[in-house]
């Protein structure tokens, strides 16, 4: 089942998400990207109901873009996080989005930051965060090995430790993961961790 987690390192933040599109007991796809690149320096990892996730992350992305067009200045990560929380809080009393969000960003003045926002509009600024069944393993692994001054390589090693734990201890562990990073040079895909490839197309 779903695993989305992230952490803040030295001058960067990263987000990891599983890439399984699941319905009931069936896996539809194992390369579904659940980390939206919101703008040049923001990542939004999301877990939850598949349709809500796609709708909500795209809605936020478009609104962040609209803000930038209208005002000529980008939203900070903090502003984006609070906006996201506001949208979830408004929806909560109407027709809630079943989406949990980990928002990572890099700002000139404040450096890297990470926000934990769940579907009931809980809002935390944190150094490390996780959602889904994988969170039980990812959180305890990060509690043990996380340091705020980690380099990208050290952090990715920690991510691999988390994935190893999830894969060995979680019954419903997803096979594939994607890692994305944001730092002063922008938000980008960093690596994939795949154990299952797409089913090959049979030769005719």
């Amino acid at each position, binding site marked *: 089942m779903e695993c989305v987690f992230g952490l803040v390192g030295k001058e960067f933040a990263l987000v990891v998400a599983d890439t399984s599109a699941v319905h009931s007991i069936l896996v539809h796809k194992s390369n579904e990207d659940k980390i939206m690149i919101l703008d040049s320096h923001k990542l939004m990892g999301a877990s939850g109901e598949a349709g809500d996730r796609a709708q909500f992350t795209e809605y936020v992305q478009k609104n962040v873009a609209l803000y930038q067009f209208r*005002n000529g200045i980008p939203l900070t990560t903090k502003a984006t996080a*609070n906006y996201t929380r506001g949208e979830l809080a408004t929806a909560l009393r109407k027709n809630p989005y079943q989406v949990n969000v980990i928002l990572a960003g890099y700002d000139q003045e404040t450096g890297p930051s990470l926000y934990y926002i769940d579907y009931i509009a809980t809002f935390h600024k944190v150094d490390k965060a996780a959602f889904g069944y994988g969170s039980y393993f990812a959180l305890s692994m990060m509690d043990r090995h996380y340091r705020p001054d980690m380099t990208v390589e050290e952090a990715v090693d920690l991510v691999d430790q988390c994935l190893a734990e999830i894969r060995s201890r979680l019954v419903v562990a997803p096979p594939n993961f994607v890692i994305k990073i944001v730092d002063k040079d922008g938000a980008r895909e960093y690596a994939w961790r795949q154990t299952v490839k797409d089913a090959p197309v049979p030769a005719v």
Partner: protein
Amino acid sequence: MSRRYDSRTTIFSPEGRLYQVEYAMEAIGNAGSAIGVLSKDGVVLVGEKKVTSKLLQTSSSTEKMYKIDDHVACVVAGIMSDANILINTARVQAQRYTFAYQEPMPVEQLVQSLCDTKQGYTQFGGLRPFGVSFLFAGWDKNYGFQLYMSDPSGNYGGWKAAAIGANNQAAQSILKQEYKDELSREEAVDLVLKVLSKTMDSTSLTSEKLELAEVFVSNGKVKYQVHSPDSLDKLLIKSGLTQPAAEAS
């Protein structure tokens, strides 16, 4: 001929003019003047008080200066009752923004949102446009200190020094001559007082006829400070303006 188009705010005259909007601007030309100057470490606003009756009991120390948010203040020229409405919407906008983003609203966005309201009355109608011009002084993290001027048509612009209200053209031309880049806040205060003393109809400049406010940053926080009559008197003496000064233009 053009009379037919006078009463509608939203209809162009055959010459392509919106008379009600022009009349509104005219109304502001009779109001007490206000001047703003941008300096490298702050923004200075000054306003001329028209009503100076000894019997008048003012509810606040200022009648033309308003704080809109912690980082933005404005000075008004025009119909005060109209201004109160707009100031209220500006304050609401600023708080809505902080509610949504937990950050202070960028100054230009605040000015723009207010000007959108003003513009609405020149296109969608109502009985008349707002008879108010504003000078906004503020600070934000993107563009630092800023000064904006807006008029009843909903136009606005960023300025280094600007004047609205009575004799604003005379004031504007003096500002054009006297303004220097890299002014300090202290020099900016001197400049606004000097310009106001030259353009005001009354011959002598006293603390009762003035309001002076500054927006600046101290200890990393934006401060809005209105000068007390005492400190105004001191400033006027310092800049040598207490004696009936220069010719009124």
